[in-house]
């Protein structure tokens, strides 16, 4: 089935019944989303805003109260949709007695990877997630970052067209988070669609093409990252080797031309960038 959309959500509403009286709690309120194929799509919002519920409904793990969802043109929760989707839940937990390779092999079999392609599919997933060496160790010995990476490997082992990642960098140090960011970009380069749910806004900004922000179950903003972040009423001029005199002259020239609220300062790199620069070469393996 051909469609330009990886996910289409129309009028999605989800109510939970709470307490003995069965009071209604609306987790998702008339949500409409259209996620194009081949992009990294960020789904953002504070805790309890309905992101995870939305993802679970998309995956068919929770039934919607109302609304229509399709994945790659197939109704969500169908075998056709799920065989084309990979999912990494938040803080994943796997059977500790299995090795990483056995786990990925297990999920590959559940995903219907053909016997003849099984080994190469497992190898490719382990390689992409930089888990080839650690793949022969039992999962009980893995660090949090490695658990996330092996979780990512199980999500992509059947080469899904759509990969849904719920907080893939939660509890992972900046080096591990950057590695996961790199893997996301590699998956996009392979033509996959990635839906990323994360609180690491810096990373979302770096890797996502589009973002949607949810609050109290509703969509409050949606668009291309560069469009939604751009402040059209301000400009930035960056220069090196600028003397104090040149600075003053530039400021005077700007004022003379009607510019207001001028700020001349040194640009800052992010703490994340500084950290990664300082611990360069350190690997979580």
């Amino acid at each position, binding site marked *: 089935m051909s469609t330009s959309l990886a996910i289409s959500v129309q009028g999605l509403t989800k109510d939970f019944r709470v307490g003995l009286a069965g009071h209604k709690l609306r987790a998702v309120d008339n949500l409409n989303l259209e996620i194009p194929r081949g992009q990294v799509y960020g789904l953002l919002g504070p805790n309890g805003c309905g992101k995870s519920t939305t993802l679970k409904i998309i995956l*068919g793990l929770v039934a919607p109260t109302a609304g229509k969802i399709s994945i790659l043109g197939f109704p969500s929760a169908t075998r056709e949709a799920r065989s084309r989707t990979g*999912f990494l839940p938040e803080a994943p937990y796997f059977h500790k007695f299995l090795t990483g390779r056995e786990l990925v092999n297990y999920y590959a079999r559940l995903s219907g990877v053909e016997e003849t392609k099984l080994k190469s599919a497992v190898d490719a997933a382990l390689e992409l997630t930089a888990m080839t060496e650690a793949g022969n160790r039992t999962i009980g010995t893995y660090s949090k970052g490695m658990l996330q990476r092996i979780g990512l490997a199980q*999500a992509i082992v059947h080469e899904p067209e759509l990969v849904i990642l719920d907080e893939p960098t939660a509890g992972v140090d900046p080096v591990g988070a950057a590695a996961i960011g790199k893997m996301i970009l590699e998956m996009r380069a392979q033509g996959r669609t990635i839906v990323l749910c994360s609180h690491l806004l810096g990373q979302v900004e770096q890797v996502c093409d589009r973002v949607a922000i949810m609050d109290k179950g509703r969509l409050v903003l949606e668009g291309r990252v560069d469009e939604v972040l751009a402040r059209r009423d301000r400009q930035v001029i960056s220069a090196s080797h600028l003397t104090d005199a040149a600075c003053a002259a530039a400021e005077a020239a700007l004022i003379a031309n009607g510019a207001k609220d001028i700020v001349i300062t040194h640009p800052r790199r992010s703490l994340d960038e500084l950290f990664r620069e300082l611990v360069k070469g350190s690997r979580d393996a």
Partner: protein
Amino acid sequence: MPDSMKSSFRRVAWISRITFLEAIRQRFFAFLIVLSAALVISSVSFRFMDFGHGELKFVADFGFGGIFFFGSILALVMTAQMFFAEIENRTALTLLAKPVGRFEFLVGKFAGVWAVLGVFIFTLCTLLGLVLWGRHQELVQIAEASGRVPPDLSVGGIFAYTLLQWLRLGVIAAMVLAVSSVARSFLFAVVVGAMTVLAGQLQWIAQEALLRDKELGVLHQAFLWLITRLIPNLQQFNIGDALTLDVTSVQVGAIGAASLSGGVYIIVLMCIAGLAFRRREI
């Protein structure tokens, strides 16, 4: 066989395999199998009591009782634990996000637990069989020396009993899985599961009342009829001593009827579990 069915069987086989590997590693399983084995072996000590021909029956009852009791606990706890481990650890999320049907998931869980119960029951029944056979050999010699009639022991009967007990534990596992599929906590599943097992053990009372008391009112009769149909009679599987020591006392068709009833209950209970689990929010 269609390809879709083959794929489905493969998925079920893999889920059951992982469930089996996880369950067999549980300390609880090791503890119960060691405790039950100790109980069966300790029954040898009864040789020092002069029970005459009744000795083997005492040893058999003691051993079968221990296997029955600990097997029931194992089936009850292990089934609920294997189900809730997937839900509470959220491995069910990754599993059910794959093209795995919910019924396949349940059948895989059931098959994995039932295989572990098979290891338990076959190990202990083999051990009990060896204990009984060893003592039987001695009692035969004693009986021959004293001119008495030697006691009977049927190895085939022990095997038949083992299969029946395995089936009984399968029925319990299916009952607990049906309860777990609607339960919100492990504790609730274990407590309600234990109640249903107890009800199954006492179901024969309703069955006898229905057959015996013809003067009961229509509503009373309908209630008893419903109970005898809804709750499996777990007592029908407890014919170990008869099968082992006096196989002629077992009614023709009793084993077949118990097996058929056990199989039907497992299928029906799994279907109920599947229906309840189908809409469950993970």
